[in-house]
C-alpha cells in the first residue's frame, strides 16, 4: 500500500517525520515533487480565491498525488505541544481534501490540548491495522529522524552566525521559506548579492540555562503557535548582529496581517533594516529582484 504526502504547507512543519513514520510501518511513501508551475496552476484552479497562496499551493500538491497512491495523508492539525492553535485554515484541510480528490484521505485529529501526540499516532497506526509495538517503533524512528535534522540544522546555523558576510534573517512560515519555487528563490538571490541567509525557522530556541539574556519583546500572547515561536526566535536572533531582516508573507494570509506589525516593530526598534515581501501566484521575479537589490544597497 502506498501513502502520498503533499510536499507543501503542513509538511514543512515536520519535514521527514511523516515519511519516516509511515515507511517504518511498512508502507511505501510517495511525496509530491518540489513545487513547480504545473502544481501551482492546478492548485490555483481549484482553490477558493479568498484563500491564501500557501493553501492554493497545497491543493496543487494534493492533486498531483491523485490516482498515484492508495491514500493521501492530510492530518488535521489543531493544537501543538504547547497547546497553541495552528492556523484555522489547517483545520479544514482534510474536509476540503475529500471534496477535491477521489483518492481516499487518511487523516487524524492532532490536538495536543486533548491528547498526547503518541496517543494520536497510535490511533492513526490502528487505522492502518498496525499493532502497538509496530507503531511505537515507527514513532521512535520518526522522532529520531526529526532530532537528527534539527541537530544538523543547529550546526549549520552556528556557522552562519559566525559568518563575516552581511547576515540577513528571513522571517516566514516554513512552507514559504523552504519552498524556493513559491518564494522565487529569495535565498539564492540574496546569496548572489553577497548575503549570508538565515531562516528564522533554523534558529534554535535558547535553552533555559543560557547566560545570554535575550531582549524580551513586548508582544501580546498570540493565539497561534507560530506567533509564539517567531517571537522567541526573533528575541534570539537580535543577539546575532544581523544586518537586515526580510519578512515574506503569502498573499491573503490573515494571521500574517497581525503578526507583521509586531515583527516590523521589533526590528525597527533595534535599528535593523526591514523589508516586507508579499508573494502570490502572480508575483514576478523582476519585482522581487529590484526590492532585494535595493535592500542590500541600503544596508
Amino acid at each position, binding site marked *: 500500500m502506498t501513502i502520498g504526502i503533499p510536499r507543501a504547507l503542513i509538511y514543512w512543519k515536520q519535514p521527514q517525520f511523516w515519511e519516516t513514520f509511515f515507511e517504518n510501518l511498512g508502507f511505501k511513501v510517495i511525496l509530491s515533487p518540489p513545487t*513547480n*508551475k*504545473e*502544481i501551482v496552476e492546478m492548485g490555483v484552479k481549484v482553490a477558493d480565491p479568498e484563500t491564501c497562496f500557501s493553501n492554493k499551493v497545497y491543493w496543487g500538491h494534493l492533486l498531483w498525488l491523485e490516482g498515484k497512491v492508495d491514500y493521501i495523508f492530510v492530518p488535521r492539525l489543531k493544537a501543538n505541544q504547547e497547546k497553541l492553535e495552528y492556523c484555522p485554515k489547517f483545520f479544514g484541510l482534510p474536509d476540503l481534501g475529500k471534496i477535491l480528490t477521489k483518492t481516499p484521505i487518511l487523516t487524524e485529529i492532532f490536538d495536543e490540548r486533548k491528547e498526547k501526540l503518541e496517543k494520536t499516532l497510535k490511533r492513526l497506526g490502528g487505522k492502518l491495522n498496525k499493532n502497538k509495538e509496530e507503531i511505537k517503533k515507527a514513532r521512535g524512528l520518526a522522532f529520531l529522524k526529526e532530532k537528527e535534522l534539527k541537530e544538523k540544522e543547529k550546526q549549520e546555523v552556528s556557522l552562519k552566525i559566525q559568518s563575516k558576510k552581511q547576515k540577513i534573517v528571513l522571517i516566514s512560515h516554513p512552507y514559504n521559506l523552504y519552498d524556493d*519555487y513559491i518564494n522565487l*528563490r529569495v535565498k539564492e538571490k540574496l546569496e548572489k548579492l553577497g548575503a549570508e541567509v538565515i531562516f528564522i525557522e533554523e534558529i534554535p530556541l535558547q535553552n533555559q540555562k543560557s547566560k545570554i539574556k535575550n531582549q524580551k519583546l513586548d508582544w501580546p500572547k498570540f493565539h497561534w503557535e507560530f506567533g509564539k515561536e517567531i517571537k522567541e526566535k526573533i528575541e534570539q536572533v537580535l543577539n546575532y548582529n544581523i544586518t537586515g531582516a526580510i519578512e515574506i508573507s503569502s*498573499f491573503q494570509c490573515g494571521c500574517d496581517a497581525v503578526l507583521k506589525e509586531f515583527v*516590523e516593530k521589533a526590528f525597527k526598534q533595534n535599528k535593523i*533594516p526591514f523589508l*516586507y515581501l*508579499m508573494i*502570490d501566484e*502572480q*508575483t514576478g521575479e*523582476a*519585482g522581487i*529582484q*529590484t*526590492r532585494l*537589490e*535595493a*535592500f542590500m*544597497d*541600503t544596508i
Partner: protein
Amino acid sequence: MKCYLGIDVGSISTKLVLIDTNNQVLFPLYLRTAGNPIGAIQGGLRELNNKIKNHNPDIEIAGVGTTGSARYLAGVITGADLIKNEITAHAKGVCSFFPDARTVIEIGGQDSKIIILENGVAVDFGLNLICSAGTGAFLDAQAHRLGIPVEQFGEIALKSKAPTTIGARCTVFSESDMIHKQQVGHLTEDIVAGLCQGLARNYLNNVAKGKNIQPPIVFLGGVSENIGMRKAFEEALGQRITVPPYNTVMGALGVALLVKENPSPKTKFLGFEISDKDIRCTSFQCQGCPNRCEVIEARIEGKIVARWGDRCGKWSNLNLEKA
C-alpha cells in the same frame, strides 16, 4: 570630453541622461516607451547622437549605466557597464543634487516608491506591493476617460473649489466611483481634484505606510509634473513638497552618476550604431521540466547576445559563442 550615460527604461517612459565629469547634465531625454523598450532605447540613442553631433561633437562615452524595470534588457543591448535597481539610482540622483533631502516620493508609470534618506544614504524604502493602483498609468487612463490631456490634469485640478471624494484604493473601483460622480453631476475639475487627493491618500496609506516621512520632501517621476498631485500631497502631509529639476529623469541621472563613480577602464558600450541595428527579442517555452519557463533570447543582427527568464539557468548560462 568624457561623458557618462544613464538610461532608465520604465513601463511607460524611457529616460536618457548624459553627464560630464563635473556632474553637469548635458542632455536629458524623456521618451515614451510605448510598449517597445528596444525601440525606445534605440530612438533615444539616435536622438542623443544627433544632439551630440550638433552641439558637442567631441563627446566620448566613457561609461553606460542602466536602471528601471527593463534594466537588464537595456543593459544587454547597449553594453552597459553597470546595471542598477531604480531605488538606488533615484537615491543617488537626489543625494547628489539635494543632499539635504530626507524623503523621496517617486510615482512612475506602473510603480510608486518612497525612499527615506539619512545623511545622503537610503536607509529605508517602500514600493507598491501587489497592486499598482495609484500610479501614473492610472492617471493616464482617467485623463483619457475624461477627455483631458494628462498634461493639463494638474491645472484643471487646481481650479476645483470643492473636490469630491473618490476612493482610489483600486483602479477599477475608483473608475466606477468616478463615473458615478459624473452621473450625479459633479464638475470635472472637482472630480479631477478628487482623483489627485485619492491617489495621494492611497500612496500614503500603502506605499508610504509606516515610513518616517520627514522634510525636505522631493517629488519625482512622471506624476510629479502634475501640479494637482503636488498640491494633494502638500495638503495631505502638511509639508512643502519640492519638485526639483530633472524630476522626471532622476533615475537615469542617478545611474549615470553611479557609473561615473565606478568607471570601468574601458566601457562596454556598443556605440550609437546600435540604434540602427536589428535588435530583436524572441521567447520560447522551455520543455525541460513542468515549470515551462519562458526564455527570452536577445539577438543583435541575428546573433544571440543574451538569454534570460529561466529559473534553473540552463539557458542563461549557455555558452553563447556556440549558439
